[in-house]
């Protein structure tokens, strides 16, 4: 069975000439949770946008569930990979929470009954059913994030890709998010600066620096390597300090 996401030597140059990715290669297997860490501007967001074809690699290739992502296979990539963007305000553009969650299923051409069922299930899954009729701009940051995740869950993707999901959350919202992320059965790719979240949710880490993959490996092994973390503008997470490395 092919990896759900497979990227080989992908490079990307923005229209203004900025080269954001240099020959990046990585794999994500079904059901696993992978963290993507790296300083600001390392290229995390750019890399994530390649996973559902929002950006198409200038060089190299990106495969989603074995199918190469190209202009012709965009809809396949977008059905398979659910993307939670960094700013929920960009993702929640419809007038009500319900409309927003229904947007994906409806644009996949589902019947009204199915759209409703999916919307209902997705909101229940993130515990936000009570906000159904509210306008998204009136929600708290934590609620927005949860609803943004619901909009993606409603499309029943095989992979969840998230850009800094715990940014702007208060401790309670963050705890809830972490519990949710742990509960998902999907393959997950999480770009984040929140290394404690990485330790609690992910099994594997990929470190990005200057648009290159500079390290990858099991979470505890890699994050405990203080010298290496500092070299890439990161730090050894606090919770690991109180535990002995295996």
């Amino acid at each position, binding site marked *: 069975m092919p990896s759900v996401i497979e990227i080989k030597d992908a490079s990307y140059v923005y229209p203004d000439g900025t080269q954001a990715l240099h020959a990046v290669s990585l794999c994500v297997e079904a059901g696993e949770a992978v963290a993507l860490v790296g300083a600001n501007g390392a290229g995390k967001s750019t890399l994530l946008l390649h996973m559902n074809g929002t950006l198409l690699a200038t060089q190299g290739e990106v495969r989603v569930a074995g199918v190469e992502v190209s202009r012709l296979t965009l809809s396949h990539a977008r059905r398979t990979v659910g993307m939670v963007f960094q*700013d929920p305000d960009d993702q929640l553009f419809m*007038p009500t929470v319900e409309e927003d969650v*229904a947007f*994906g299923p409806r644009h996949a051409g589902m019947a009204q009954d199915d759209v409703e069922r999916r919307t209902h299930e997705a909101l229940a899954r993130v515990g936000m059913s009570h906000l159904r009729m509210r306008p998204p701009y009136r929600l708290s940051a934590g609620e927005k994030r949860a609803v943004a995740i619901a909009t*993606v869950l409603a499309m029943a993707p095989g992979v969840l890709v998230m850009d800094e999901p715990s940014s702007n959350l208060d401790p309670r919202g963050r705890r809830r998010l972490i519990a949710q992320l742990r509960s998902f059965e999907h393959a997950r790719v999480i770009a984040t600066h929140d290394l404690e979240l990485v330790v609690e949710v992910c099994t594997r880490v990929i470190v990005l620096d200057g648009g290159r993959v500079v390290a990858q490996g099991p979470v505890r092994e890699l994050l405990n390597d203080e010298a290496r973390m500092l070299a890439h503008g990161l730090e050894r997470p606090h919770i690991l300090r109180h535990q002995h490395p295996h």
Partner: protein
Amino acid sequence: MAFPMAVERWLDVARMDELARQGTPVHRIDARAQTVTTLLFIGVVMSFARDELSALMPFFIYPVALMSAGRIPAASLLRKLAVAMPFAVAVGLLNPVFDTRPALALGPLHVSSGWLSFLSIMLRCLLTVSAALLLVACTGMQRLCEGLVRLGVPRVFAVQLLFLYRYLFLLADEGRRMTRGIELRSPGVRGVRFRVYVSLIGHLLLRAMARAERIYHAMQARGFDGRIRLQFTSPLRLADPLFVGGWTLFFAVARVWNLAEALGALLMKGVG
């Protein structure tokens, strides 16, 4: 696009949205019915002779009824009216200057037709402006846009109205944060220097465009292919045609007969 917007007006927009979320009988009337009735109301009110006064009075029942049954506080409407009136007042005030023809004699008191038409302009202004404000306060932007699409307004137009409304608060907040820094450094100054202004507006614009691009990506990620699909679930209820029909009948009657004058004549006969 004339007036700079004060911050309070933004709070008003948010309040309006809240008002529109109430569940009164008026709010349950279909947005299409309300839109049609509002337009009809404005058309009829404006079709009176330009110095008509008393015949306009019965028309106040429409905004007052909506306001009361829809529990819209009069204060917020009046505040907006105060903001909206100046242009009409300024232009209308010239009527008494240019038109001194006597038109009304109340015993020794002669009122020129210019004053009559000025007062008439003010009355119409009150009526039409409050009708428009009440339309949105009783439906809300989302239902209104849905209603517009179902009335045949192009989807592209309605959808981008919704987007405009959705991101109004967000961008206003961004703008406010950006200007606050400048205001703190130059207290008491009403505007900023031109150079500063241009870079402020320029940055705001670039951010807005970047945001639009991110939204577009988010839409594509969920299957947007250039055509927004909206689902209309609310069917017309019996109350909706009744609402339109009832008001139409009333407008027609009040347009044809001067109800206020008839009432006055009746009262005076009773007294005398």
